[in-house]
Structure formats: structure tokens, C-alpha cells
């Protein structure tokens, strides 16, 4: 299987990576779209394009509605700040209004069960506690279009079930889901449509039952 976008060697020892090319599709409300492809096929680049942080060098992207991304759930976490401050920092970055911060903080306290640890700097947390906090804050959004890089699974057995429930709620509340994944079981369970990328191009676009057997080879 071909990996990587195409390399265009140019003058002056400059190499341009064409991470995506000739890509054209549209998504409508209710679709749950899985993105598959080998490493370097352009999955993350496509997710960033959909997230509005990358722009195409040719062609155009038109996005209607709010977009929320769960690519990096630990984004903006400051280990020296305490749990409450980190909730506030993340909420500000996500554009959550100040008036909703108190309610959000209470809700995260209940969900993460971090208790008094929220008063301590995040650097004192175990990695599991750290992930609980990051997960809880990152999933506090309610966007129209949700972007994920692999399904999120965090914490111990008990927390994993709570997290799963919260994530499903978030996914169900979104109108369109884009998820890049290598997990066949997940893609079959969640997705209504699959985009298969290879070398930055769209190799196949259609229903999971038609594409997944071809991709996973059975």
C-alpha cells in the first residue's frame, strides 16, 4: 500500500509535500464519516482542513456550522496551573462564554470525580487523572460538526464506561462526524460512510460494507 503524499522536488532544495490532491466530496447532516488510509495518506491533514485551520492551496472548502475538534484533547493544559484554572483556560480557548464557566466546572467536577485534586496543580496528577480532566474539558463542546482522530478511550475500567457514554452523547448531538481510524470494528459500528485515502487522493467513497472488506483485506 502506498503511503505518504507525493513529493515535488523544487528548485533551491525545497521539497513540497502534496498531502492531499484532487479531493472532492460533500457531507450532509446525519452522516458519520470514517476516514481510512495508511500512515501519511492525508487523514490528519484532511481533518485539519475540515477544522478550518488549514486552507487548500487550490480548490475550496465550504463549511456550514460550527466545528469542534478532538484531535488533541490535552491542548492548552498548563501543568503548573490547578484543575479549575485549566478548565477556565480550555473553556476560553473553545469560546465557551464566561457565564457558563461555573456550570461547566461543577459538571466536570462531578464527571471526573477529581474532588480536591482540582485545587492542586495538574503536575501533581497521575497520568490517568490528567487524561480524565483533559477528556472532560475537551468533550464539553457541542459543535455541529465533530472531528476526531481515533475514538477516545481514557482512564480505568469504570471511568472508561462513563467516558464512552459521554463521547456517544457528544457524537449523537453532532450533525456530522468525521473520524479517522484504523479500527475496523469501530468504523463498522459508528460510520455510515467511508472515505479511503491513498497517497493524498480519494481512492474510494461509499458505504462501510462495500469499502471496509477491501481495505482490511477480507
Amino acid at each position, binding site marked *: 500500500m502506498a503511503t505518504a503524499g507525493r513529493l515535488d522536488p523544487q528548485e533551491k532544495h525545497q521539497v513540497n509535500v502534496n498531502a492531499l490532491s484532487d479531493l472532492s466530496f460533500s457531507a450532509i447532516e446525519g452522516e458519520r464519516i470514517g476516514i481510512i488510509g495508511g500512515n501519511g495518506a492525508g487523514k490528519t491533514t484532511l481533518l485539519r482542513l475540515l477544522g478550518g485551520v*488549514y486552507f487548500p492551496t487550490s480548490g475550496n472548502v465550504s463549511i456550514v456550522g460550527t466545528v469542534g*475538534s478532538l484531535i*488533541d484533547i490535552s491542548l492548552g493544559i498548563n501543568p*503548573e496551573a490547578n484543575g479549575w484554572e485549566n478548565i477556565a483556560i480550555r473553556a*476560553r480557548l473553545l469560546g465557551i462564554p464566561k457565564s457558563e464557566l461555573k456550570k461547566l466546572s461543577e459538571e466536570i467536577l462531578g464527571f471526573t470525580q477529581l474532588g480536591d485534586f482540582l485545587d492542586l496543580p495538574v503536575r501533581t496528577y497521575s497520568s490517568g487523572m490528567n487524561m480524565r480532566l483533559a477528556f472532560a474539558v475537551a468533550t464539553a463542546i457541542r459543535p455541529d460538526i465533530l472531528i476526531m482522530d481515533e475514538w477516545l478511550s481514557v482512564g480505568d475500567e469504570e471511568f472508561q464506561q462513563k467516558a464512552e457514554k459521554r463521547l456517544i452523547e457528544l457524537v449523537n448531538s453532532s450533525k456530522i462526524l468525521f473520524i479517522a481510524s484504523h479500527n475496523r470494528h469501530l468504523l463498522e459500528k459508528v460510520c455510515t460512510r467511508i472515505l479511503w485515502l491513498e497517497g493524498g487522493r480519494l481512492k474510494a467513497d461509499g458505504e462501510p460494507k462495500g469499502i471496509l472488506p477491501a481495505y482490511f483485506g477480507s
Partner: protein
Amino acid sequence: MLLKITNTSKIAGLAIFLGWQDVRQSYRRSSIGPYWLTIGMAVQIGALAVVFGFVLRNNLAEYLPFVATGIIFWTFISTFLIESCQAFIAAEAIMRQIPLSPWVFVGRVIWRNLSTLAHNAIILPFVMLLNLGALNANLVLELPAIFLVSFSLLPLGISFAISTARFRDLSPIVISGVGIMFYALPILWQPSLLPEKIAFYLLGLNPVYHCLQVLRLPVLGKIPTAENWIGVIVFALLNWLIALALLKMSKRKLTLWL
């Protein structure tokens, strides 16, 4: 990411919030936080005043406030210019996930430096004790001066941040340039020492000199000249024009450079 923040007051609000976070960060696990920088600066000013005051036989009551205002305001300008180069690089993780206005990150740098300036300004009352006669109502000009200089530096910071994101070599160049500027500006030496013609080329044409003057003179009880104010305003206009052009050119590519 939920809302693409376009509105100016929201941009400013987020920039100030992040700037405060940086200030709070310097207080963490330290009892006096950013005042360590202030103490270092006070020692530096004291040493300079002693050495230059005695060596050059300057009148200390006049020279100490001159050096103190020079160092404090120059540190504000120079630190902002150096740090703004890294504004986007430091925010890489955020910029690659959430589409926020680039102004947020440069605004954060200027707010952080304004806050440091406020900390360092605590040196000034002590220094002015030596020369109480100089203090007068002209001090009120300090506020518009700080506003105007910040307004002119902000877009320069955007230009530096964009250019450094694309060409990382710019950062060391800015650091050296700022180092040279320290000697070319009347921070340690009085501008009256220069012959008029040289003063015009070295100072009159240097917009940073005018920024320094409008910031410094009101504290020393003097009114900045019309030339100083015009210098800063022209500097601001030029910086805004360049910054807006660079932003327009780089808008679609900025995050790819990070």
C-alpha cells in the same frame, strides 16, 4: 473552535486572558514572581548610574531618572519585539487545532509585556525621589503615550511573528538588531551630546527613538515634542500597512508554516 472568533473585543479579551495566564505563571512557585526581574533591573540601573554618573561626571539627580526611564521603557519595547517573533511558534499546538485570529497571540505578548512594565515601573517613584522637582502634571501624558506606542508596536509584532513562522532565521536577526539599537538610542547617553546633524540621522529618522521619547519624557516632567508624536504615529501607520499586507498574503498558509 466552536465559534470562529472574529469580533475585536473577543480577540482582545482572549489575548488579555492568555497574557494574564503568562503573568500568573511567573508567580507560581515563587513568592515575588516577576519582581525578580524588577530587582535585577533595579540593580542594573543602580550600577549604570554609579559607573556612568561618576565616570562621566553626570549629575546623579538628573542622570539616574534618565537612565532608569531609558532602561525600563527600552526593556518593554525590546522584549516585546524579541518575544513577538515566537508568538505563533509558541502557540503552534493551539493554532493547529482551533481557528483563532493571529492577533490573539501577539496581543497576548503585548499584554504580558505591559504587565511586566507595570511591575518594573515601581522603580520609578524611588528614582524620582532624587529629583522631585521634575515631577509635574505632564505625567498624565504617560497614558496616551503607552497606548500609542503599544498601538504602533502591535502590528510590528504581527509582522515579526508571521515572518519568523516562515523564516526561523529572523529571530536571531531581531535579537542582534535590538542589541545594536540599545547603543544607538539615547538610553545611557544624553541626546544633547550629539552634534545636530548626526542627531537628525541617528535619532530623528529612527521611529523607535520617538517611541522611547514619548514614553520617557512625561515621567521626567517634560512634554514630548510634536516631532516625537508624529514620529510614533507615522511608525504606527507604516506598521499597520505592512502587517495587514503580510496577514493577507499569509492567511491561508500560516498554520502550514508552524
